[in-house]
């Protein structure tokens, strides 16, 4: 027993010959909002499914809410809210009916009142009698979140909750998640939107089933030792293309109407941007995304050497 809400080590899972999660160890403290990052296919969903007992790990063990993830899967399910990547409520039921089903399945004593409360809280009131299938993506996602916090879980596992919704809705969704964390929920949220990583207390970056980077969201960027510059001016798309090929530039892209470049070797990077005097260059704080790209390309180089 320890005070970490999630504490697993050595988790591995293969589907056929493909190893999807490879020797993964993870600790998430109580009330933490932990961002689970990585490209599609990096093993995020599989890890979440193992945590809530939907998949049996091939190897490894650990606890979730102090309960063994294999032996006590059933008890874990009662205290966990799991939001699947795909909308998985019933499109031919109304919002209220979906929520009543969830309340009934968790055997909540005051089911009707609880459903009413969560509808208010998630501002779903005007859609309560609407069929879930008629909702837009944003409201479907809101319904899914309402359904997985309805039974007052201690841990939320959210799988790509903001996929396919607009920026404003994403921001509101993250506000809700932070409110929930303040109230005592622990949240493990997977996403491939790097711009949202800053909103996590801690981030874990997964690539090919392995943890690449892990730590406090701001520290990860600062301690990476990366140098990053933004350049403003004309023809930035074209320049981004050309600068990417230069030595010392690990990543270059257009971001908020600027060419954003990152590299680990300051001298080389500054020589590279020096070739494009038509832009106004300014050093900026490295972003988490830069760190991931850096780590990935470092890994690729290692593998190329091998």
């Amino acid at each position, binding site marked *: 027993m320890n005070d970490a809400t999630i504490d697993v080590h050595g988790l591995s899972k293969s589907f056929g010959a493909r190893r999807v999660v490879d020797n993964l160890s993870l600790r998430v403290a109580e009330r933490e909002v932990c961002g689970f990052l990585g490209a599609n296919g990096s093993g995020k969903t599989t890890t979440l499914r193992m945590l809530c007992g*939907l998949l049996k790990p091939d190897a490894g063990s650990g606890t979730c809410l102090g309960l063994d993830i294999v032996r006590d899967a059933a008890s874990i399910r009662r205290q966990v809210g799991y939001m699947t990547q795909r909308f998985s409520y019933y499109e031919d039921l109304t919002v209220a*009916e979906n929520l009543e089903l*969830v309340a009934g399945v968790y055997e909540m004593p005051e089911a009707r009142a609880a459903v009413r409360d969560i509808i208010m809280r998630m501002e779903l009131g005007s859609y309560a009698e609407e069929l879930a299938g008629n909702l837009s993506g944003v409201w479907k996602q809101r319904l899914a979140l309402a359904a997985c916090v309805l039974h007052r879980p201690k841990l939320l596992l959210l799988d790509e909750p903001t996929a396919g919704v607009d920026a404003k809705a994403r921001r509101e969704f993250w506000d809700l998640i932070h409110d929930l964390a303040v109230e005592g929920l622990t949240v493990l949220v997977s996403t491939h939107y790097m711009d949202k990583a800053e909103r996590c207390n801690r981030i874990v970056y997964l690539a090919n089933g392995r943890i690449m980077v892990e730590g406090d969201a701001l520290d990860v960027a600062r301690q990476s030792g990366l140098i990053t510059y933004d350049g403003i001016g004309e023809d930035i798309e074209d320049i981004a293309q050309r600068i990417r090929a230069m030595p010392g530039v690990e990543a270059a892209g257009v971001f908020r109407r600027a060419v954003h470049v990152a590299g680990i070797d300051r001298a080389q990077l500054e020589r590279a941007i020096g070739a494009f005097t038509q832009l106004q260059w300014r050093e900026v704080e490295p972003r988490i995304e830069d760190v991931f790209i850096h780590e990935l390309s470092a890994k690729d180089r290692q593998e190329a050497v091998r």
Partner: protein
Amino acid sequence: MSGISSKRVRSLLRKEWLQVRRDPFTLRLIIALPIMQLLLFGYAINTNPKHLPTGLLAAEPSKYERTIVAGLQNTGYYDIKTLRSEQEAEKGLAQGDYLFVVNIPPNFDRSVDRGESPSVLIDADATDPTAIGYATAALGGLANVLNRDLPPIRRVQPSTPAFQFIVHSRYNPEQLSVLNIVPGLICVVLTMSTLFLTTLSITRERERGTMENLMAMPVRPIEIMLAKIAPYILIGYIQVIVILAVSAAVFRLPVHGSVIVLLLALGLFIASNLALGLTFSTVASNQMQATQMAQFALMPSILMSGFFAPFAGMPVWAQYVGEALPTTHAIRIVRGLLLKGNAPTDILPDLWPIAVFTVLVVGVGAWLYRETLD
């Protein structure tokens, strides 16, 4: 998590009920399908089966009887087995072991020799008129079968026939095909709706991703299954009642046996289909596969159960396959109860194979079921 929670099952049941109600197209189909089939299939089936199981009741050994039996067998329609008692004959007819019973009266040889033209009574199970139609027609050709055996004195008086056949159509005296179709139709329509709908409804949850969500909640598989099958039992019974009502109104279907026994027996039959549907759904990964698997089970149920063509007309290997199908036995039960007025004990020989089938299929389903997504 131990035990079944009535609250959870109630919530799931409500969900299933709402989903069924929100699908008016399927609901209308469920009612329209049996009526349409009843009217279309009604008179369409016609075949000419041979080697029909026939029982022989002879009061005493007789030489003319042997000639008649040889004659009957030579028509190709009758496979004759000697019976010991009238009770055996009666029971054999009621349970469908025999389609005919040939009664040779006492003193048959003497009556023939005296030129009294005695009657050979043939009891025929007329629930399926097409099954016996050609066979009874063939009797006409046997009128003179005894002539060569007759004593010379009788041979010169050919004006009176040596004997005559009297066919006694039992159970369906007017020989209406539709009366035979109705029991089969009840069973086939039940198979279609219950087997297809359960297989599809679970596979649909998997395909839409809602199963993952259900499994992540504290629901036991048995609870999901219970909630899934309940609406389809109800739908099955509604269909039975629709078919019976339409048949009674349009075709004057007689109901000789107990309707309650009929509904109870059909409950077991519905259960066997639901079990098969659930087992299919544990294997099928999408609705397309599920449909194909259900079709795979449905075709023999229609073709080899005695619904489409008389059971006795099938080759022996096909009869073995047919005996393994619940539909075959259910059709016999329904025919027996509706048309023959069979007692509950008469349906036992057809009830236990359905029960065995159900238990086996449930076992396979439970063995295949995975509580995780692996």
